[in-house]
């Protein structure tokens, strides 16, 4: 597999009250065509900033390093060129579907926009939109196409957001905590849909999440981030069965699971850090 997305030595600085704050300290990661990669970490690890930096969404971020997507260097691309990448070649799904949708436009209008902007006729765009919404499990998609976002439940709204993100058939979908706001059963449905859609279309997915449970069932490969840099990456089976980095081990051991013996005490990162003082973690704030 060839790398669709290559990120090398990515650094990000944001202006702060006491001068610039370095939020990403050298991120390296690859996503191959059709591959599902999970970027996991706790709050402040830089996982979302990495996702947003790939699409240059934060205008106050000072970015350094290299981001190459399908042969194009995104950091030197013009703003106009970036607009063609966003939405068409790279789709985006965020955590909060309500914030991502325009409340005064019908969901159908919003779903077809990425096609209409690129010159697809309204009728054809509508046909494809309804078909996709139906594929995403929205019943009676033809009738619901002209409804407004507030007429949909949270889970259905997230399906609309996914439809908008994938209708122009992007080679890569970046999904930032796409199911964090959803109930567990809806979360399972949405993840299954994302996985099936990715496999049917050969679409690569970069999933950003804090949830090690959903990563296990979704990703081919995992990148574990902490303090603005990856501490470990590898195939999902290797990371879960044989984590090499103490932080990855501690993270996995801190997650309760329903198939575990509940008398086994959860470990915490603080305990793991205390045991590994001999191995200083760069920039640790603790």
């Amino acid at each position, binding site marked *: 597999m060839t790398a669709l997305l290559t990120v090398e030595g990515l650094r990000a600085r944001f202006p702060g009250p006491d001068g610039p704050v370095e939020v990403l300290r050298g991120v390296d990661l690859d996503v191959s065509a059709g591959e599902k990669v999970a970027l996991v970490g706790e709050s402040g690890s830089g996982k979302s900033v990495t996702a947003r930096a790939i699409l240059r969404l934060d205008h106050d971020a000072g970015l350094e390093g290299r981001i190459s997507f399908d042969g194009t260097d995104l950091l030197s691309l013009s703003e106009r060129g970036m607009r063609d990448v966003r939405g068409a070649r790279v789709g985006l799904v965020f955590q909060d579907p309500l914030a991502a949708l325009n409340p005064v436009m019908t969901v159908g209008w919003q779903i077809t926009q990425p096609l209409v902007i690129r010159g697809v006729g309204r009728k054809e765009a509508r046909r494809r939109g309804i078909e996709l919404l139906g594929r995403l499990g929205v019943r009676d998609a033809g009738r619901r196409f002209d409804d407004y976002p507030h007429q949909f439940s949270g889970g259905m709204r997230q399906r609309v957001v996914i439809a908008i993100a994938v209708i122009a058939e992007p080679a890569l979908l970046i999904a930032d905590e796409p199911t964090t706001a959803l*109930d567990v059963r809806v979360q399972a449905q949405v993840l299954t849909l994302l996985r099936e859609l990715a496999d049917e279309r050969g679409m690569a997915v970069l999933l950003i999440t804090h949830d090690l449970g959903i990563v296990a*069932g979704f990703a081919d490969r995992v990148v574990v981030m902490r303090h603005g840099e990856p501490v470990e990456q590898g195939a999902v089976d290797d990371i879960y069965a044989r984590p090499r980095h103490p932080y990855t081990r*501690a993270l996995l051991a*801190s*997650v*309760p699971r*329903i*198939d*575990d013996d*509940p008398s086994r005490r959860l470990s915490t990162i603080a305990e793991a850090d205390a045991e590994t003082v001999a191995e200083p973690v760069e920039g640790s704030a603790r």
Partner: protein
Amino acid sequence: MTALRVQNLVKSFGGRPVVKDVSFELAPGEVLGLVGESGSGKSTVARCVVRLTRPDSGRVLLGDRDVLAASRRELRGLRRDLQMVFQDPYSSLSPRMTAGALVEEGMIAHGLEKDPAARRDRAVALLETVGLSAADAGRHPRSFSGGQRQRIAIARALAVEPKVLICDEVVSSLDVSVQAQVLNLFRDLRERLGLSILFIAHDLAVVHYLCDRVAVLDQGSLVEIGDREQIYRQPRHPYTRSLLDAVPIPDPAVERARHARA
């Protein structure tokens, strides 16, 4: 003698039933999990139990005392024995007070420790119980992390020596590593203090880790209640089964086997 008994609790908002005839009991020293999806009514049950919301009908007994029929005066005493910790450790702590003052506040309100020096010592001891230090007593909430704030909120609730603690989604806004610390803290407290806890959460893995018994709420109705082992290994109600099937397990091999079966 049960620590807490909830009988036939009913509550609607604007004609829409939110809690439909919910009954359960909490034994002394027991941790009972109350699980359900958003809109299941679990937070409303909690708020009715502590009388932050008036139920339409039903009874709540703390030991042998009727919480819903209590006069204002009696309610003060009840509130001491029945403490609640909320989800958001940011909005439930006054930003103007130090951690020590926040912990002392309940003791003052209930006249528990009249001597200021002794009260301060007790506040420090409580902060230490939840894994903070004496030096932390002088700091304000904003200088703590989310997990530390949640521990201050717990210390504050424990300060008045409650018999029953109601916890509403207390770990759901925390990172996993901090969540593990707070869950372990609850385990230790329960062992050391013999506290009875009603633990409300949407995360079934967290409930599995902490709770002896589990009650499952679906659209305001209690569909199943039982021991942890029974609920997780032999769920009787289809709704409980569908919830458990959807809980992700952090193990790729297990997840692949589950997808293959689905």
